[in-house]
């Protein structure tokens, strides 16, 4: 049993129709937190699509209108940037698989509407990585994280190159070759993702992940990769994808089967659990049940609830408690610690094992 602390942004996303009746104080809290959660444009679009924007009181409505201006501009910027990327990679041939925001935009999926885009993310086969990087650098993208230690980390462990910054346009491009670091305990096969990818209508050379894979990638990205400052925004993307694809026949069965196939049962479990509780996503009971194979052992499950329900709040003081900073820090991917492979351990515990001392632990 989990109890999600309601925050105005989740409540608003769940049911935008009630919003025009909210008081000024409620609107104020909503605008402040939605802005921090990068969801104010999404809110504006939801209201606009339902023809409710003009019913919102004038003062908060101005902020929503401002947010619409921003998201419209950003969508246009993403289209332009993807065009540049295509041009840069044209000579290599092969298709480019778009991920995340750019994918939602080009595939005309609901999470694209009202989205605040930051970087462009693409997925390429690991074998093509060197060639892709060279072509991009030729066209003006430069690597970041110049510290040799950081470079080593990215290229040795990570599933993506260090972010590429374009020198004149100052846009950021993330080139992925997998969806999780090589050291992660989950091992989804990127070749399968690429194989199942689908073309984008009207855009030869561009592809997006198959619907199930798109959901699984979003879930993996949110629950295993990301610093959770935009956790609620990513959760809203997931909610939007699930609502959109959920109406398609066989989707839920395919989703859980594919999760097992790709070793992504854990992220799927979290995705269905938290979207349902926080955003009231209509996940069918059989799907939730089937996803239980991804459920972590009890204490970890309860611990993750306590962590995620804090970290998936908007990053705003009004939505935080004493333990929120610790929760965010613990979930940030830096928390994945490796043993250094060549380390030889010869250890002899001169004190009693921690487990047997737990009665003394304060």
């Amino acid at each position, binding site marked *: 049993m989990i109890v999600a602390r309601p925050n105005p942004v989740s409540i608003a996303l769940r049911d935008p129709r009630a919003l025009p009746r909210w008081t000024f104080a409620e609107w104020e809290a909503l605008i402040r937190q939605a802005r921090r959660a990068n969801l104010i444009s999404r809110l504006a679009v939801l209201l606009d699509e339902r023809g409710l924007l003009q019913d919102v009181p004038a003062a908060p409505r101005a902020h929503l209108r401002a947010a619409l201006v921003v998201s419209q501009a950003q969508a246009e910027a993403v289209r332009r940037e993807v065009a540049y990327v295509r041009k840069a990679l044209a000579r290599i041939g092969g298709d480019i698989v778009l991920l995340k925001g750019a994918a939602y935009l080009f595939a005309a999926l609901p999470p694209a509407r009202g989205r605040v885009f930051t970087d462009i993310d693409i997925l390429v086969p690991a074998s093509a990585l060197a060639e892709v990087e060279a072509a991009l650098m030729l066209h003006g993208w430069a690597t970041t994280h110049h510290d040799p230690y950081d470079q080593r980390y*990215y290229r040795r462990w990570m599933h993506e190159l260090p972010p590429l910054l374009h020198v004149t346009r100052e846009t950021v491009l993330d080139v992925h070759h997998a969806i999780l670091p090589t050291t*992660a305990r989950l091992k989804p096969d990127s070749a399968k993702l690429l194989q199942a990818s689908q073309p984008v209508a009207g855009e030869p050379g561009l592809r997006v992940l198959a619907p199930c894979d798109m959901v699984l990638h979003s879930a993996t990205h949110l629950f295993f990769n990301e610093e959770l400052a935009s956790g609620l925004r990513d959760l809203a993307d997931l909610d939007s994808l699930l609502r959109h694809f959920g109406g398609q026949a066989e989707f839920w069965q395919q989703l859980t089967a594919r999760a097992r196939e790709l070793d992504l049962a854990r992220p799927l479990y979290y995705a269905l659990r938290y979207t349902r509780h926080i955003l009231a996503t209509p996940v069918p009971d059989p799907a939730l049940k089937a996803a239980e194979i991804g459920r972590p052992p009890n204490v970890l499950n309860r611990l993750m609830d306590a962590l995620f329900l804090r970290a998936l709040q908007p990053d705003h003081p009004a939505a935080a408690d004493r333990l929120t900073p610790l929760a965010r820090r613990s979930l940030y991917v830096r928390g994945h610690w490796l043993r250094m492979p060549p380390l030889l351990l010869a250890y002899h*515990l001169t*004190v009693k094992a921690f487990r047997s001392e737990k009665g003394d632990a304060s």
Partner: protein
Amino acid sequence: MVLNARSGSTHLLEPLAAEVLRALAEADAGMSIPDIVACLRDDAAAEEALEWLSAVESVLTEFQRLGLAEPEQP
């Protein structure tokens, strides 16, 4: 006691640190801080487990300094 064969230095670890290191050693891939806490305190209530997070975090920071473990991301 731990001997770091790479650096040649020897460290005396406190019980918590020893258990954290053992958890890392037994896993064959990266473990997140919540993973480690759950491993160490498999019968704890969630709120109590939350309190252990900072302790484990401090241990790992110290390990990084000593060269006994490193984080997956820079």
